[in-house]
């Protein structure tokens, strides 16, 4: 990214603001960025990195559409400053597939497959956040009940689906992940 300022002469740099250099890993790739302290993490992801799969839906930390993982834990990226990920690892929905069977690129994570199989999305806006929150649940509890799933997703709002199919999608993914555990012949990672 190139930042360009107006040069008003006499050493005055119009529009220049103090930035901070941060280093972080995003979906497995190491990056350096220079950011204003007030830049929200969600804006670093969407605008600075061009990863627009993480969405912003509210201004009071309620909707969870912006959920990403920081160091493997789900976080509402609108409520973190970009400067806070200095030295940390971020995973967004674009990096979900990498963590699925078969390595990086076009192979989908079972959560992504599950949402399609079980019609867990309609407009798709809450979906990346839902999947990132669900991933955290499945990382900790590979065999959740319906109640476990509803509890784990209670920080993510959806207006379209009524949640029932989202729950089914997550349970579908859990079942698939269990059947793909490291003991299975193809040795795929959960």
């Amino acid at each position: 990214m190139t930042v360009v300022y107006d040069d008003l002469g006499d050493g005055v740099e119009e529009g220049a603001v103090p930035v901070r250099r941060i280093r972080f890993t995003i979906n497995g790739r190491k990056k350096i960025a220079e950011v204003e302290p007030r830049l929200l993490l969600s804006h670093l992801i969407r605008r600075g990195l061009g990863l627009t799969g993480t969405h912003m839906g509210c201004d009071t930390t309620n909707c969870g559409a912006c959920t990403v993982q920081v160091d493997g834990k789900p976080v509402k990226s609108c409520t973190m400053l970009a400067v806070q990920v200095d030295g940390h690892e971020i995973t967004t929905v674009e990096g979900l597939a990498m963590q699925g069977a078969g390595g990086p690129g076009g192979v989908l994570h079972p959560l992504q497959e599950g949402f399609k199989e079980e019609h867990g999305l309609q407009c798709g806006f809450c979906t990346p956040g839902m999947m990132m929150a669900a991933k955290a649940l499945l990382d900790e509890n590979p065999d959740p009940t319906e109640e476990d799933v509803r509890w784990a997703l209670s920080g993510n709002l959806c207006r379209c689906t009524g949640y029932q199919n989202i729950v089914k999608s997550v349970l579908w993914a859990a079942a698939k992940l269990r059947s793909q555990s490291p003991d299975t012949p193809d040795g795929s990672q959960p």
Partner: protein
Amino acid sequence: MYPSRFRYEAPHSLDEAIGLLHGGGDNAKVLAGGQSLVPLMKLRFASPELVVDINNLPGLDYHRAGPDGTLHVGALCRHADLERSALLKSTQPTMAAAAPLIADPIVRNRGTLVGSLCHADPQGDWASVVLALGGSVVARGPGGTRTIPVAEFVSGPFQNVLEPDEIVVEAVIPAANGARAGGYLKLERRVGDFATVGVAVAVETSGDTVTRAGIALTGVGGSTIGATAAADALAGRPLTAESIGRAADLAAEAARPRTDHRGSAEYKRHMVRTFVTRILGRVEPAEERAA
């Protein structure tokens, strides 16, 4: 949605952090979980000039019991750590009941108990819990360390008694004098809502007798309310339907709720009474509880 400009520092030692606050004047804020501060900054209800991020300070993410049974909760211990804590589930029933009810599961990954106490939101849940347990905060400043009982810590809505250059490093829950029982009930209209009414009850029993009791109320006044008369009505005697009823009435009297879109003042007082009764009604007789 977009905070005002500010300076940002991310110190790596407590002394460095205190030094930055000392130089920062009145308009510096400590950033721990950020789940209260950042939303306020986004709405521009808070516009600090300096933000001191303490997330890089080592060794503050603990919660542990001391040899004397005191519970220590470090400044960077997250709500989620407390929600999952086997220690809390087995030794701190009031805290264990409250932890899952803080905000929502994702916010709980970042927010901290200590941060919640310092934020001093009148609708904060932990404040009632820690008050009912007779807890304190330990603050460190340039002049040294001091312990402040939570009952004396809040000076108004979103205001605490800390000096601008003090940081709370841990919360402390005193050891129990007997077997612990209690709980936290919160009337929320949906997950993540602030409490319409929240009630924290913590009792300690020795044999049949209640040796210590604490009752504190969320959301029914301009600040967290310590229902001391209600707690006193329980102490020094067995838990009976009568003493529970008396405590419930006194707790309802201690509440100072407003009639608003969450309900009438009368309803909120009624809920205080109901919650006190329900929490205490679930306390099993001493001999049936694990030590």
